[in-house]
């Protein structure tokens, strides 16, 4: 039995079996979705046990060797992403068991989430650019529908805009792939990574820029960001949590990282572009978030701003830059999904997410306020939490590499982030209200997943402890820093 294909098989199987078995029963569908996600998480843990000590697993579909078979690979980086993806989605699915009861057709919701997970897991284990594209499309199509799940006019508009922008990114990537196939005759990543150095410079730059534009659009780097705030703020809370927490990172960040670091191998120009776009998204996202009145919209802009840090981390490169980007991804994945879930909880009880209509949430929902605090501090980077260390590492890396201006920007945006979250806490959560204070907390079934995510956020700071770091992070950082697909020799492939 080959472990690498299992994440894809589990989620694809689940998304076809659930509508077959539980066509009308939302609760059973949710239970089944959770069970399948637990299975997916278990497989990722098993893969982690095999891969984290070092090395990588490679398999070919159908047992066909290189030019024929479709290659799948799991190494430290992809398994780390698999772990985060499956853990976040499990907790989000547990949350949606109660939250989604307000919607109709919940079976479709679980099916679409499972399809999106199948796509994301598929992107993470593929080593064939066409396969990556197919899974990328599966995940994207599911997310387009999920954004419109509420069927309101706003959701439809956001989804339409998201769809148009999403297909634009697909066209860029498809075009780049067509060029690669035309020039090198292969879509297998190691094969064309070897051929890349022989290509004419003009072709090479065109391909690289198409890839950066395509995946950067999905990562919502600033000139390509306009779809994200609408899509992420109008979707149902669990969907926002999945999209902002993991989707943009797996489909955007991970692919940008693989393409720019492992395929084209640390090209200086690509890094400059990433540094520029990263700084731009960091600042623009932060400033836009400061002006937002809607809680979910603010969180969505904050996602753009924080993804800027990740892009800067890859742009700087080196051990510190990669480590910073990776830690920032982990911290942000958990904190941002926690924040969107807590915003969903507020919306669930209060009926609105406009910060002007919300007063004194703390008086009515103390526990939700507690986890919201944790999420906001997690993203703003308050010391013991993971994102403090990741921002510190990125700043140190920037100073070390001679980008003092960018380091300064990082510090300023960190202060800006803290300031808009503190302002939100003061106006919406801790403001005084007249009248009697009745407790109206969300049910335990929604609180428990949020507290679990909060516990994970608290633990992210510990990732940097040397024994933990050497097990979990160092393998992935090694992949980012040193690994290149062209080094995958035939002997390794036959493993």
């Amino acid at each position, binding site marked *: 039995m080959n472990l690498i294909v299992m994440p894809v098989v589990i989620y694809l*199987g689940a998304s*076809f079996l659930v509508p*077959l078995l539980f*066509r009308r029963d939302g609760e059973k569908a949710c239970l089944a979705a959770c069970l399948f996600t637990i299975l997916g998480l278990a497989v990722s843990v098993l893969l982690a046990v095999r891969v984290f000590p070092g090395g990588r697993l490679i398999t070919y579909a*159908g*047992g066909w060797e290189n030019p024929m078979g479709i290659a799948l690979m799991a190494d430290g980086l992809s398994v780390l992403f698999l772990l985060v993806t499956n853990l976040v989605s499990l907790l989000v699915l547990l949350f949606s068991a109660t939250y989604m009861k307000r919607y109709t057709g919940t079976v479709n919701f679980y099916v679409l989430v499972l399809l999106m997970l199948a796509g994301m897991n598929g992107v993470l284990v593929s080593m064939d650019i066409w396969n990556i594209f197919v899974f990328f499309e599966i995940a994207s199509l599911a997310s387009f529908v999920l954004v419109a799940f509420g069927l309101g006019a706003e959701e439809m508009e956001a989804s339409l805009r998201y769809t148009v922008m999403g297909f634009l990114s697909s066209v860029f990537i498809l075009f780049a792939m067509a060029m690669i196939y035309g020039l090198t005759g292969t879509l297998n990543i190691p094969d064309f990574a070897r051929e890349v150095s022989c290509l004419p410079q003009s072709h090479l730059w065109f391909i690289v820029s198409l890839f950066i534009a395509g995946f950067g659009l999905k990562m919502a780097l600033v000139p390509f960001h306009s779809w994200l705030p609408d899509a992420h703020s109008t979707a149902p809370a669990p969907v926002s949590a999945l999209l902002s927490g993991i989707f943009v990172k797996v489909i955007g960040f991970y692919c940008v990282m693989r393409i720019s670091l492992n395929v084209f191998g640390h090209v200086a120009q690509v890094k400059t572009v990433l540094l520029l776009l990263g700084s731009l998204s960091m600042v623009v996202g932060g400033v836009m978030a400061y002006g937002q009145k809607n809680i979910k919209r603010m969180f969505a802009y904050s996602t753009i701003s924080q993804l800027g840090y990740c892009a800067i981390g890859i742009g700087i490169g080196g051990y510190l830059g990669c480590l910073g980007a990776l830690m920032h991804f982990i911290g942000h994945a958990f904190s941002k999904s926690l924040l969107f879930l807590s915003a969903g909880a507020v919306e669930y009880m209060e009926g609105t997410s406009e910060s002007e209509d919300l007063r004194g949430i703390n008086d009515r929902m103390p526990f939700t306020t507690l986890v919201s605090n944790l999420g906001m501090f997690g993203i703003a980077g308050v010391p013991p939490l993971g994102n403090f260390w990741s921002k510190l590492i990125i700043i140190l890396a920037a100073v070390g590499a001679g980008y003092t201006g960018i380091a300064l920007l990082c510090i300023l945006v960190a202060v800006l982030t803290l300031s808009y979250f503190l302002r939100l806490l003061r106006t919406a959560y801790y403001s005084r209200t007249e009248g009697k204070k009745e407790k109206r907390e969300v049910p335990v079934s929604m609180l428990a997943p949020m507290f679990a995510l909060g516990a994970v956020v608290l633990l992210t700071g510990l990732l940097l402890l040397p024994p933990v770091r050497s097990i979990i992070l160092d393998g992935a950082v090694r992949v980012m820093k040193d690994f290149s697909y062209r080094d995958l020799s035939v002997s390794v492939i036959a493993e």
Partner: protein
Amino acid sequence: MEKGMSEIVKGVSKMVFPFIMLFGTSLVLYGHLSPGGGFSGGVVLAGGFVLLLLAFGKEHVFDIFPRRVAEALDSLGAAGFLAIAVLGFAGGHFFYNFLDKGRLFHLWSAGTMVFCNIMIGIKIGSALFLAISMLSMSRLVHTKDGVEYRQSGEDE
């Protein structure tokens, strides 16, 4: 007024329908030997039902090919395809062609490929039919405030 198009269209559609089904099935079954395959065969199969949908109206088509069945077949086709892929583990690999390859250029000559094609044909046929029949579900209604789409069955 009677539903659907004129008697001539209905009559011709009724006559052509079995042949479209036959052609679709042969495309699906001989996909590994000649041009065609699960996808194109499935599209032809769905096209047959779409022809009936246009000629007779959706009630008639849903009588012979109910939505529930189409939805179930849609999931079943995909799940079946995945099952064939997973059964490949019997030979040690995902998607391994574990069946006997038979004789060249005969129907039984490609192991699991025939079954993959059949599953894709079922999936595409039912999914495409469902997608097109969904278009007939909502209707453009002119109201005072402009134009809106309504699910059919809703009151005017």
